[in-house]
């Protein structure tokens, strides 16, 4: 069964002013339990607006959002429950840190859930482990940490709510290559260990290629594609037409295929490319 389903979602910013702007139009998607989904699109394509509908931060102008088959706006008073089930990590989440210690900041979500102290403690430590925060960092003020560490504290703050669905909006924005790799790796591990549903919003095709099983491509507030990662990346021309590009290795393989070499497709990472090419090249060496 789908954990999240949307039916004909529509949303407009600033209706009735000169700044009126359609954000998303007619979005209907189904997300299965345990899926790892990448959402990609330009700034202003509606990705962030869409994910804020999934945890009830935005209320659709029309259309419905279902969580485990239930309309999340059936009881608007209980919308907070939905936010515990669908955890959303915002872009630059380190800007939301406020507590005296990282530990307390991570505990903010779980304590809002009304859990008892032992349970909160267990969850904070578990979440901290997922993002690789050492004990001494937990007792430090979050404002003393490095950029990458702050980001990880903020992500742990949402993981600690143990949501059924974890959504991360641009989790690697503004980080250096090392920080980016660390966080992507941790998210992947989290997903595998918990088997929970994870949605990552990103500009970077390389990031998406590395972790997502399915890709949702958005353009001008609409869904352009929603399919398995290989199927989406095989439509490089269409992606190019809306200004998105496939990873460089994928492009290498496309050029080679266009030149008539039978190298196959479905290659998005350097490792995949190496493993695919080596036998072919070695064959030549042996001949």
């Amino acid at each position, binding site marked *: 069964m789908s954990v999240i389903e949307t039916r004909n979602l529509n949303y407009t910013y600033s209706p009735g002013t000169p700044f009126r702007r359609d954000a998303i139009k007619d979005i209907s998607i189904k997300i299965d339990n345990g899926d790892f989904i990448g959402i990609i699109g*330009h*700034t*202003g394509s509606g990705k962030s607006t869409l994910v804020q509908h999934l945890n009830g931060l935005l209320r659709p102008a029309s259309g419905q959002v279902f969580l485990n088959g239930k309309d999340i706006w059936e009881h608007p008073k209980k919308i907070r429950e939905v936010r515990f089930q669908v955890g959303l990590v915002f872009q630059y989440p380190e800007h939301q840190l406020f507590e005296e210690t990282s530990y307390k900041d991570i505990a903010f979500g779980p304590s809002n859930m009304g859990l008892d102290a032992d349970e909160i403690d267990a969850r904070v430590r578990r979440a901290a482990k997922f993002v690789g925060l050492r004990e001494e960092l937990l007792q430090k003020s979050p404002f003393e940490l*490095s*950029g*990458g560490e702050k980001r990880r504290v903020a992500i742990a703050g949402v993981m600690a709510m143990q949501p059924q669905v974890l959504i991360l909006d641009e989790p690697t*924005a*503004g980080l*250096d*290559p*090392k*920080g980016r790799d660390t966080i992507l790796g941790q998210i992947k591990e989290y997903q595998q260990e918990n088997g929970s549903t994870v949605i990552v919003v990103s*500009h*970077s095709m*390389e990031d998406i290629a590395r972790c997502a099983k399915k890709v949702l491509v958005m353009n001008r507030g609409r869904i352009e594609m929603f399919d398995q990662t290989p199927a989406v990346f095989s439509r490089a021309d269409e992606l190019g037409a809306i*200004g*998105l*590009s496939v*990873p*460089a*290795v994928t*492009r*290498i393989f496309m*050029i*080679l295929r266009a*030149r*008539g*070499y*039978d*190298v196959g497709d479905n290659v998005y990472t*350097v*490792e995949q*490319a*190496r493993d695919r*090419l*080596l036998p*072919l*090249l*070695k*064959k*030549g*060496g042996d*001949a």
Partner: protein
Amino acid sequence: MNIISANDVRFYYETEEEAGGRPLLVLDDIRLDIERGEFVALLGHNGSGKSTLAKHFNAMLLPSGGRVLVSGMDTKDEKLRYEIRRMVGMVLQNPDNQLVSTIVEEDVAFGPENLGVSPKEIRRRVDEALKTVGMLEYSDHAPHKLSGGQKQRVAIAGILAMRPDCIVLDEPTAMLDPQGRKEVLETVFRLNKEQGITVVLITHYMEEAVLADRVLVMEEGRILIQGTPREVFSRVDELRGVELDVPQPTELCHELRMQGVPLPEGILTAEECAQALSMFLEAAHVGH
């Protein structure tokens, strides 16, 4: 001729007692000459000292030891400070936090106004600068309504209006989406090629460094590697050692070379990589 030369520049912060009271060394004997008209990319992970070094180029920071000369002027000379800052303009990372005014053209005018340029001349420079970065049609817009790439181009125009000889950009694309990154890079590249403005680009993105004439890699306050993009990116293992990425095509060729496929070094783009690979695939009779 050199526009910037750093002679044995050291820089350290005094730390507090509890941290041992020892000064924290950020730049360690940097020796570097940047030629007029050159496009230099400065790479390094966070904390490698690249931003600190950049701030020495326009006298925002002064060396604790050694000297920085900008077109022969010592940055320590207080009387020359504003002339140095005019000559070496600086664009910062966060596009939101460097625009002063609520109207694009008034923001671009801020620099020349500070320099006491005459109103007519400011008008001319502002229009010219906005035209150069392709933002002239937005001159009466409010900055907060622009996209990140547009804001960053306005920031560049604000520097251009001071008629600089050199522009230092401190991770100007780190907070932008791919579209914005492209806009900013194309603008910077054009300024360098068409107007001969010296560019120092600090970045994490290897695809951006590829555009430069010279790439410098910093680590722990020193310049670790320098050379043309091809030379630098052929040293894949060293770059990885300092936690930097290489472009995917370069990495792929390197990986294959490690496995005994004698691909050439210094491949940077997908096209070059495909070209090199097809020669080997041809030899292996794949698909023909």
